[in-house]
């Protein structure tokens, strides 16, 4: 017994508080069962004894009470007490602020040794904080631990997907829908950066993870088909969610100041699983899921499409607009012979996910190990897309001597991602006429997306593209100019191939030397390698933009290496029993290098070899390579002090030097201070509230952090190469590559946090509230410069932004009986963002282009929040009456039925002063709630998240709803279209038509006269509540398990994303965002899927 205790203590000192807690649990259980040590004695009236803690410290001021009487005594400074007993069956109750209530039956014992365990509550949960760990109760800053329940086996291609709605103040946006391995945006407490890096820093087992600069780049010629590097996978998708032990999120500057120049967007700390002392444990987890798209868009079917196109054609004729089409698109006699296709279906499938995971872990007093492997294969709901991951992880800890511990960790991951090439395939499918197939009768891809494909198809032999099927009533010349990209050329086996294979190695080795009981020194060497290969091939049958050559292959290679050296000293000591000090001092240096190479060629005679033999292409592109890197040197410290676990003070500071800035601005200091007061540890409070209030804590903190998320070399004037031609031969030219800004400096975020934590009834009810104010100064932005400089942008520190918010969370166990338990959790956060100042050559505001060929969609102005839509107010359409009274200078060139904008300043012109703020993509509040119902061995959990009060600019709708009389459109747009009233229009229908004329006119085929200007017409409410998952767990009863010598078996079924409550008309209210300023724009990318999963988990 004694030896065993010694072993545990030995482990505890070296390892962490986690083991301490484990130890406390273990011993207190033991003691509660055994109750008393000591010799049997005859009946006495008085009993004396000593009260000690689990670790052997004598406990003073413990209340000793005889149960059901008023007799009370206290322990003295040696932990001794003495009390009279009414009878031998009396029960003594020991209570204290910091220790669990302990009952002892005296019986015939004379002298008692009472051991009290320290109170273990949610407040004793250990949080991984920067460069160390701390008990939740000891934390003075805003830091949250996310429960990893249901993370393993949840089929997540990327653990970020799991974070949404789990913690207040953390807003997760799956911007690319359910695309396997697609990008996920995580924002903590609003945006504190304009366009550079709004994402938190991810730290995996103490090593900050770098987001690779260039995932691999494709050929510039292929961009419109492939997208620039869009096939790249998210490096966080290389982490196996099953390996994650804990996730801590540091939110305020006081918590993240220890990460200095990278802390302003918050920090997400991931700790991976490690071995525990005990017998070897084997865990096998298997699950499989089926996913289907959640929603489709209702577009026109055959008859409506024909009506629409013929109306457009009539309008065109009426307006006397000439052009390429002499024919009426559809004759009444042909309609019956036309087919009616559903192209959305062709681009969707039921996708399967398989997740196999095995891990082995164990340990003894000398060493501990954790070993795991994963095979994860997720298909996307769009054909050809998917993600495959092979992951291997090894964590090993060995005590080389009683003082020296070696810790190693190695993760090797191979991820192969088949990406969706561009975001336009969805729009392409929706716009494709229902009367025109995607595939020709001979199996080739159809090139004609509209009415030009018709009955009595003729074959036009294009010299470049071969057979083109078309409606023979139209001239072949009008057909030959059609170059629409068939959606199958993006998302089918006949289409573009876009494969990103990445290999990631995360490795670290650390040595910890325990100098004495209080002081330890630790050296860490971390290495992160992320190498990726992006392979693209565009088959011969697909038209390349601006080209007649067929077949394009491109290879983009990138190598990203990060080295981390770190040496730290850690001092933990308790002085005079009540003064607890924990200090850490760290010096660290990081070096990051990113290299990229691209080679591509075009003009392939066959699709047989594709990107595996780019030399088969007849025209090679100029090969390109790039280099970029930066270095960061830092020293930092943190000291946490508390007096008797009541009053806490914590200070930290980091001195960072970054190579990205020049001399005067190279170094920055980022300090923080935090205080807290655990009121429930006050005796007077405890005496008054007793057991009712289990936790009551105030905290306040202040900190300063930075953001250095700009490209390296931004402060240097440099030349780069271009290629031109002289006399028909390629020649190299050197040109200025950027407008350098030597004055660049860090973005600085100062934040203050006030927090309150409450726990009632042994933490059956817990409540937390935090209010914060963040002010970010010197925001970096690629500010537009006058084009007369020969450049379009320059990086500059131009703005100040503030974020204010409130975060609340409430967790309750509503019902708790032997067999039944019901618990719920709810969190909500409010954030208010405001631009305080905007300077620089941009003038009073910055207009943000969101890159869709639209007029600038956003405007940033001081006094307003960022991400505000800015444009015209639409007031219906021009009718045949109103257009006659329109000033000639207002909306020049618009025709009857065209969208009508409000002339807000009444000057008869449509100008910038008629544009107003139209809403914002930033939600007013976000959050999540969950419930867990346990009945015997069944557990039913569900989780919802929500976002309220944000608007969406439905660019996708604008795109597919463009009434050009050619493309297919949304049914809703068709139903509300403008209908011209002609002289032969049935008079009975005129009123009905007038009443319905509110969207836009049916335009003329081949033209697109819808105003491209941004207006409120396409802005919708984007609020939603989404059921993220519902999981039913069944754990086999112990009786069964023991028979087979197992530890546990769990079966589960899970449904993810099964429903979403929203008024938003698009596919997914979680829309794309592109950077800090442009948000809430639906570009219509990958569809969101709902999935059903079944799996099991066995522990041996």
């Amino acid at each position, binding site marked *: 017994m004694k030896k065993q205790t010694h072993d545990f203590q030995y482990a505890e000192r070296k390892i962490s508080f986690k083991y301490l807690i484990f130890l406390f649990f273990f011993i207190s259980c033991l003691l509660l069962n055994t109750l008393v040590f000591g010799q049997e004695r005859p009946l006495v009236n008085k009993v004396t004894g000593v009260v000690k803690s689990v670790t052997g410290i004598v406990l003073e001021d413990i209340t000793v009470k005889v149960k059901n009487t008023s007799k009370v005594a206290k322990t003295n400074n040696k932990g001794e007490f003495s009390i009279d007993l009414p009878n031998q069956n009396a029960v003594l109750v020991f209570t204290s602020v910091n220790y669990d209530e302990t009952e002892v039956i005296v019986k015939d014992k004379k002298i008692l040794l009472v051991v009290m365990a320290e109170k273990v509550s949610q407040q004793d949960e250990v949080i991984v904080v920067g460069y160390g760990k701390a008990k939740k109760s000891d934390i003075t800053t805003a830091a949250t631990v996310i429960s990893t329940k249901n993370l393993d086996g949840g089929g997540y291609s990327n653990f970020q997907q799991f974070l949404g709605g789990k913690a207040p103040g953390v807003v997760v946006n799956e911007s690319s829908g359910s695309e396997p391995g697609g990008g996920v945006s995580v924002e903590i407490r609003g945006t504190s950066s304009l366009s550079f890096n709004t994402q938190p820093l991810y730290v995996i087992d103490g090593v900050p993870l770098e987001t690779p600069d260039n995932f691999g780049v494709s050929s510039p*010629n292929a961009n419109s088909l492939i997208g620039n590097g869009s096939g790249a996978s998210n490096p966080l998708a290389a982490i196996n969610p099953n390996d994650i032990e804990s996730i801590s999120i540091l939110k305020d500057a006081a918590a993240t100041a220890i990460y200095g120049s990278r802390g302003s967007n918050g920090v997400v700390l991931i700790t991976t699983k490690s071995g525990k002392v005990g017998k070897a444990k084997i865990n096998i987890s298997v699950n499989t899921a089926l996913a289907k798209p959640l929603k489709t868009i209702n577009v026109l079917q055959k008859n409506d499409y024909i009506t629409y196109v013929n109306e457009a054609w009539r309008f065109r004729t009426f307006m*006397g607009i000439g*052009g*390429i089409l002499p024919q009426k698109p559809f004759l009444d006699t042909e309609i019956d012979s036309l087919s009616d296709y559903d192209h959305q279906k062709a681009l969707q499938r039921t996708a399967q996910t398989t997740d196999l995971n095995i891990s082995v872990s164990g340990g003894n007093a000398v060493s501990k190990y954790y070993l795991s492997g994963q095979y994860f294969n997720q298909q996307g709901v769009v054909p050809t897309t998917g993600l495959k991951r092979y992951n291997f992880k090894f964590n090993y800890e060995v005590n080389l001597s009683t003082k020296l511990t070696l810790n190693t960790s190695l993760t090797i991951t191979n991820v192969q991602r088949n990406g969706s090439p561009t975001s336009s395939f969805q729009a392409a499918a929706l716009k494709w006429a229902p009367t025109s197939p995607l595939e020709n009768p001979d199996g080739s891809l159809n090139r004609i997306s509209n009415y030009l494909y018709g009955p009595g198809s003729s074959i036009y032999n294009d010299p470049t593209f071969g057979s083109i099927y078309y409606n023979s009533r139209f001239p072949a*010349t009008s057909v030959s*100019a059609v170059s629409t990209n068939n959606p199958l050329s993006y998302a089918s086996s006949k289409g573009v191939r876009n494969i990103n294979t990445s290999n990631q190695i995360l490795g670290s080795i650390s040595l910890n030397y325990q100098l004495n009981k209080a002081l330890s*020194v630790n050296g860490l060497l971390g290495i992160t390698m992320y190498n990726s290969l992006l392979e693209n091939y565009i088959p011969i049958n697909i038209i390349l933009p*601006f080209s007649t*050559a067929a077949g394009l292959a491109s290879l983009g290679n990138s190598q990203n290496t990060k080295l981390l050296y770190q*040496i730290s*000293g850690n001092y933990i000591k308790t002085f005079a029993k009540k003064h607890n000090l924990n200090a850490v*001092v760290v*010096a660290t*240096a990081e070096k990051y290098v990113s290299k990229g190479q691209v080679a591509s060629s075009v003009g392939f005679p066959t699709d047989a070899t594709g990107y595996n033999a780019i030399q088969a292409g*007849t*025209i090679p*592109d*100029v090969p*390109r390579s*790039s280099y970029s*890197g930066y*270095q960061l040197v830092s*020293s930092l410290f943190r000291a946490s002090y508390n007096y008797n676990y009541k009053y806490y003070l914590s200070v930290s500071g980091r001195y960072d*030097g970054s190579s990205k800035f020049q001399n005067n601005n*190279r170094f920055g200091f980022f300090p923080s201070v935090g205080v807290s007061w655990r009121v429930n540890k006050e005796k007077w409070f405890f005496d008054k509230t007793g057991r009712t209030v289990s936790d009551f804590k105030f905290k306040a903190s202040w900190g300063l952090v930075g953001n250095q998320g700009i490209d390296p070399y931004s402060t240097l004037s*440099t030349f*780069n190469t*271009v*290629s*031109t*031609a*002289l*006399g028909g*031969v*390629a*020649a*190299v*030219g*050197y*040109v*200025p590559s950027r*407008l350098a800004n030597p004055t660049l400096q860090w973005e600085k975020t100062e934040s203050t946090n006030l927090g309150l934590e409450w726990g009632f009834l042994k933490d059956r009810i817990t409540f937390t509230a935090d209010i914060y104010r963040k002010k970010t100064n010197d925001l970096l932005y690629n*500010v*537009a410069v006058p*084009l*007369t*400089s*020969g450049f*379009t942008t320059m990086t500059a520190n131009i703005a100040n932004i503030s974020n204010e918010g409130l975060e609340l969370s409430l967790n309750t166990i509503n019902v708790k009986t032997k067999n039944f338990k019901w618990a719920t959790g709810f969190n909500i956060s409010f954030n208010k963002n405001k631009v305080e100042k905007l300077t620089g050559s941009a*003038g009073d505001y910055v207009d943000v282009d969101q890159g869709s*060929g639209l*007029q600038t969609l956003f405007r940033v102005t001081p006094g307003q929040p960022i991400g505000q839509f800015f444009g015209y107010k639409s007031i219906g359409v021009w009718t045949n009456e109103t257009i006659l009274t329109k000033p000639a*200078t207002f909306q*020049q060139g618009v025709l009857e039925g065209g969208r009508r904008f409000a002339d807000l300043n009444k000057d008869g012109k*449509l*100008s910038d002063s008629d544009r107003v703020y139209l809403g914002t993509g930033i939600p007013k509040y976000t959050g999540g709630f969950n419930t867990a119902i346990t009945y015997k061995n069944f557990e039913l959990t569900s989780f919802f998240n929500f976002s309220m009060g944000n608007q969406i600019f439905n660019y996708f709708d604008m795109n597919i709803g463009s009434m050009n009389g050619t493309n297919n459109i949304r049914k809703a747009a068709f139903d509300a279209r403008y209908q011209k009233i002609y002289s032969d229009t049935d008079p009975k229908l005129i009123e009905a038509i007038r009443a319905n004329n509110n969207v836009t006119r049916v335009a003329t085929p*081949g*033209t*697109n*006269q819808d105003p491209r200007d941004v207006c409120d017409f396409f802005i919708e409410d984007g609020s939603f509540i989404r059921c993220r998952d519902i999981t039913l767990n069944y754990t086999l009863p112990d009786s069964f398990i023991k028979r087979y010598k197992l530890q546990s078996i769990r079966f589960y079924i899970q449904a993810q994303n099964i429903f979403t409550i929203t008024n938003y008309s698009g596919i997914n209210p979680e829309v794309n965002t592109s950077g800090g300023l442009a948000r809430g724009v639906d570009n219509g990318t990958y569809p969101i899927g709902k999935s059903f999963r079944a799996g099991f988990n066995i522990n041996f």
Partner: protein
Amino acid sequence: MKNKNILVAFSVAMLSLCSCKKFLEEDPKGLVASTNFFQNESEIIAGANGVMQAARLEVGPNIPAIFFAELITDDGISGGTVVGERLEVDNLNFISTHAIIRTLWTNCYQVINRANNVISFVDSSKVKPATCRRVIAESRFWRAYNYFKLVQLWGDVPLVLEASSYDNVLPSRTPSTAVYNQIIDDLKYAEINLDPVYSYTDTKNGGRPTQVAAKALLGKVYLTMAGKPLNDVSKLQLAADKLNEVITNKATYGVDLMPIYADIFKVSVKPTNKENLFYFRGTTGLPPASQGYTRLKFSLVTFNFVIPSKEVKTLFEVGDLRKAVNMNAAQSQIGKYIDNVTVATTDNADDFHIIRYSDVLMMYAETLIELGGTTNLNAALAIINNVRKTHGGSTLADLTYINQNDLRDKYRVERRKEFMYEGQRYYDLKRWGIFITTMKAHLAFQNSLPASPNYDYIDDHYNILPLPYSDITTNPNLRPQNPGY
């Protein structure tokens, strides 16, 4: 004791990390620092190549300059899959946010900044003086060419003559006369210091600006100054002299009128095309990234960005050989720039001619007409008839004239036919001061609508373009916007 040693070692390690200044120096290995570039011959030539690469964007991937200049006139209308942006140019109802207008502006100033970089940073102490002068002359030529475009399109524009840096990005507008003076200055330097002429196949220099290009361009600048809106008639004689200088020395420069109009645009004739006086060369077989190609075929022909207007279909006399070159048989597409031998990605073998020899002749004729007097008018008529009958065909009748106005009108029709779809018409109409009236008539005719009230919105402010909205917002020194926008 032992502990102390470790503490000391630990502190030293920390300090050494912090003091490691060299560790934080940036080394942009893939880029060249501008402070120590342009030190030797190949570096300064690479600088000049960089200027040229930007200049070529006029016919490169963004191809706006050429189709804009055709779309906006009465020769071309918007075809193909029409988008509003092109229609706005076609119908003259663009505003300052127009993307094509922004691109035109951007491209010009990008060339100018690159040229300014070369001119400012070339270290003349380390490079052969002749090479140094030539590279500077080349850069000044490109700068002049782009300022000439800018001043014609926008009027008073910022005259930026220094390499852009952090503290000089907010220039003010300079009166157009001062811009013209700088253009003349640059071209005068260029015509002395550029090489006289390069062979078409010279793999080191073919396609670089030459003396003859500088002289012809200078003649055009003088002629333009003499026309609207400057009306500086004192430049007429200068124009005549400069253009005549090219004509009299045509043998020296190896330029002359091509006997067959169609040959000018034939890829097979390119190396011996004597009209090639200032051109962007189309190439094949080069990697796409080198932009050694023109994308004229794709923008003008394959995608029908610009198609022939109603008027031009009936413009040519019967037997005029130029009609079949300028448009296809169905009169539905432009016919130039389609003689593309290799059909491969982004390859386009067609050259684009900025100044042809016949342009020099015709401009000379124009100066003579404007100078007036029977001798000049007769000489002008002879030139016009020469070009007309050489290129249009010998079956065409000789033109005659009644008076100066009559000859001027006839000249203008001939010029239109000769240079159709070569990016000239827009500037011609502006120089002649008839852009607005012509466009009103054209749109009314094209769309079969009465000019009034349908095209009443087209007023004089459309004579120049709006400054790009983005520059008006980012640079307060550019305000106010051109009137009317």
